[in-house]
């Protein structure tokens, strides 16, 4: 009975709608809370949640629930963290809850008041709405002395989250495959990269560039390399917003995805992209069946863990024709405290301890620590003293915060969604009639129209 399909489809929507509708009853509470916050933004409320030092730590007590996305290590590594945390804060009991599909599930729970004490700030929540859901952690100008990467989740000078790790993005490759293919030098420009992929195809059995098309979200990792292609830390949040020609030839977006299109067109990607499998691709890269994948640093640890010889797994910046090579640093999820938490002091203590003392940012997180002056991870030490720089993206101009996101959503382009990347691959392998320029033109038209709308509205 095919009716079930329509019913399921509608039911999914209506159910979601129903779940969200729960928030209408909550509106008053949350607005009040937000109002209190706004009042307290400059004063005591901000400092109230700062973690105490020394003996005061023993006075903090209560139960807290920490919600995490790491289903893989919640019962092992996180248990150890809790034990170590208790050495310093003996009266706090830490419970964990791991969500397998974090982003979607937490978003629905956030329409109630029950979403744990410490949790990751969902990226899909509009920045301006953060004060409705999260406890302020302090003034950005104060916290800045200690942490990097705060600007991504700051509203009106108040920070609501601290990154659990700082990722860098680029190409993860198998050194042995490169050696077998006779590529001795790490490719730097588009031409060198393309030549390297071709020699892998000719001289080895490995897939030169694995797209992970079927998983979808893996394709969004390309977008993180936009700053490398632009060679400019100001491009993503400032340059892009100021331009009507975001996807025309010569612009970073055009060049970035041209790499994807060309590789697919020349048969340098997997044989059947529609049935790729993310989990097995990690093992395949680790063991030399795949040459390169475009990912973030968070994947390095996972891939090394599967490798017979972990030293084979290497990282290089995304190719670029820019004068200097910039590897963009960006926040992973940010950690924050729920506005509904009953034990805010304990929750705040966990946030500080987790970022500063657990070691998570570099070990399990696989990136760099957001704590200023922390040591670089092993894999990056090779780049010390080279012309490769690591830098965060410049924040948007005052008054233009969140515009990239707003334009993107209005235009339904999906910079951080897999859709148009999939279209590019489909076109390149001949499944669509559109050419690369057609796709880019369409995106640019959407961008232009949406930008006009957003800029006039603000």
């Amino acid at each position, binding site marked *: 009975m*095919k009716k079930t*399909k329509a019913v*399921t489809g509608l039911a999914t929507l209506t159910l979601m*709608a129903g779940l969200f509708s729960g928030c209408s009853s909550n509106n008053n509470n*949350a607005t009040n809370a937000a109002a209190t916050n706004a009042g307290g933004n400059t004063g005591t409320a901000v400092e109230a949640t700062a973690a105490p030092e020394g003996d005061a730590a023993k006075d903090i007590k209560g139960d807290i629930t920490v919600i995490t996305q790491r289903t893989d290590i919640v019962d092992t590594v996180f248990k150890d963290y809790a034990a170590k945390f208790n050495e310093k804060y003996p009266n706090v009991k830490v419970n964990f809850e791991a969500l397998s599909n974090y982003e979607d599930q937490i978003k629905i729970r956030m329409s109630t008041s029950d979403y744990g004490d410490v949790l990751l700030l969902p990226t899909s929540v509009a920045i301006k709405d953060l004060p409705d859901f999260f406890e302020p952690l302090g003034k950005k100008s104060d916290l800045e002395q200690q942490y990097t990467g705060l600007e991504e989740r700051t509203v009106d000078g108040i920070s609501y989250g601290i990154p659990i790790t700082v990722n860098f993005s680029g190409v993860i490759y198998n050194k042995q495959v490169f050696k077998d293919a006779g590529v001795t030098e790490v490719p730097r420009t588009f031409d060198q990269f393309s030549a390297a992929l071709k020699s892998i195809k000719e001289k080895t059995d490995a897939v030169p560039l694995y797209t992970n098309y079927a998983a979808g979200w893996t394709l969004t990792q390309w977008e993180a390399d936009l700053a490398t292609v632009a060679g400019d830390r100001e491009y993503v949040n400032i340059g892009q917003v100021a331009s009507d020609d975001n996807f025309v030839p010569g612009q970073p977006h055009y060049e970035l995805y041209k790499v994807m299109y060309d590789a697919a067109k020349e048969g340098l990607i997997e044989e*059947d992209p529609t*049935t790729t499998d993310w989990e097995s691709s990690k093992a395949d890269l680790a063991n030399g069946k795949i040459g390169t994948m475009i990912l973030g640093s968070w994947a390095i640890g996972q891939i090394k863990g599967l490798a017979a010889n972990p030293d084979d797994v290497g990282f290089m910046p995304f190719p670029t024709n820019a004068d200097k090579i910039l590897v963009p640093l960006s926040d992973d999820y940010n950690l924050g405290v729920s506005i509904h938490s009953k034990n805010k002091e304990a929750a705040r203590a966990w946030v500080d301890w987790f970022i500063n003392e657990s070691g998570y940012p570099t070990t399990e997180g696989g990136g760099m620590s957001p704590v200023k002056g922390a040591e670089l991870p092993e894999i990056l030490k090779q780049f010390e003293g080279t012309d490769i720089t690591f830098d965060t993206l410049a924040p948007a101009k005052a008054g233009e915060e969140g515009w990239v996101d707003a334009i993107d959503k209005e235009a339904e382009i999906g910079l951080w969604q897999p*859709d148009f990347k*999939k279209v590019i691959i*489909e076109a390149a392998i001949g499944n669509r009639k559109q050419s690369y320029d057609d796709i880019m033109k369409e995106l640019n038209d959407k961008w232009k129209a949406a930008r006009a709308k957003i800029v006039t509205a603000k």
Partner: protein
Amino acid sequence: MPKLSNLSYKNQRILIIFLFSLVPVVLLLTFSYLPVFKMFQYSFTSWNGLSKNMEYIGFDNYKTIFTKPEYFAVFKVSLYYFFATFVQMGLALYFATILSFNVRLKNWFKGILFFPTLLNGVAIGFIFLFFFKPEGTLNTILDLLGLTSLQQKWLLNPQLINVSLAFASVWRYMGMNFIIFLGAISSIGSDIYEASEIDGANRWHQFRHIIIPSIKRILQLNLILAVSGAIGVFEIPYVMTGGSNGSGTFVIQTVDVAFKYSKLGLASAMAVVLLGIVILVTILQRILIKEEK
């Protein structure tokens, strides 16, 4: 303390009917009518799904849907499922007829045919994903049969992807059609068959002149359900391909608009439009089928 037996029989009846229907009615209201009502409400807003403030924008969402052709272009894909519907009903009717006669291992076959309906749609998606892989089950079987030349990349080829997905959908929903047909056919009295046999009717005659006319109503009902189902295809393409490579349907697009682009208002409007289309198609079919008689 008031006792139930103090009430008159009539009032007892009313009370009990009321109490018994309270639970289902409350469930129905909470999980069907309230969400639908909310959906209508959201469809007039530009709400992003989480923000505390909701802005009413009148009919703008509907205007967007009806003025941009790309929102309706995806209905093309529904045609594949629409045609698959007839295959599905044909097969279901065929098996139901055969199994209504005396066949060896009748119940075993019934079980096999109905089994897919019991499986979770997501599981079926994954099963068929593996089935259609280049080195997956289907190509392996073709290889074993010596039909290597027929091997395909079932989900990569834009001409085949929707046929492949529609096939999976037929596999999944056929059992349900089958069981309904079987029930309808079983209700035909055995004396009619006996009489027709005495008159010299063979199996085909029986099928043509006894079975079909007797289950005409059920056929119509299944057809209506199947057609409105084809308009709202969701699970199988969503799980297997996420709507990529030209397999996107209207419902997938609605979900994308809601959760990828945080336009819950627009998505609600799309859901309302879909609901409207399904109702329209159903009414249309009712009218057309009635006139036939």
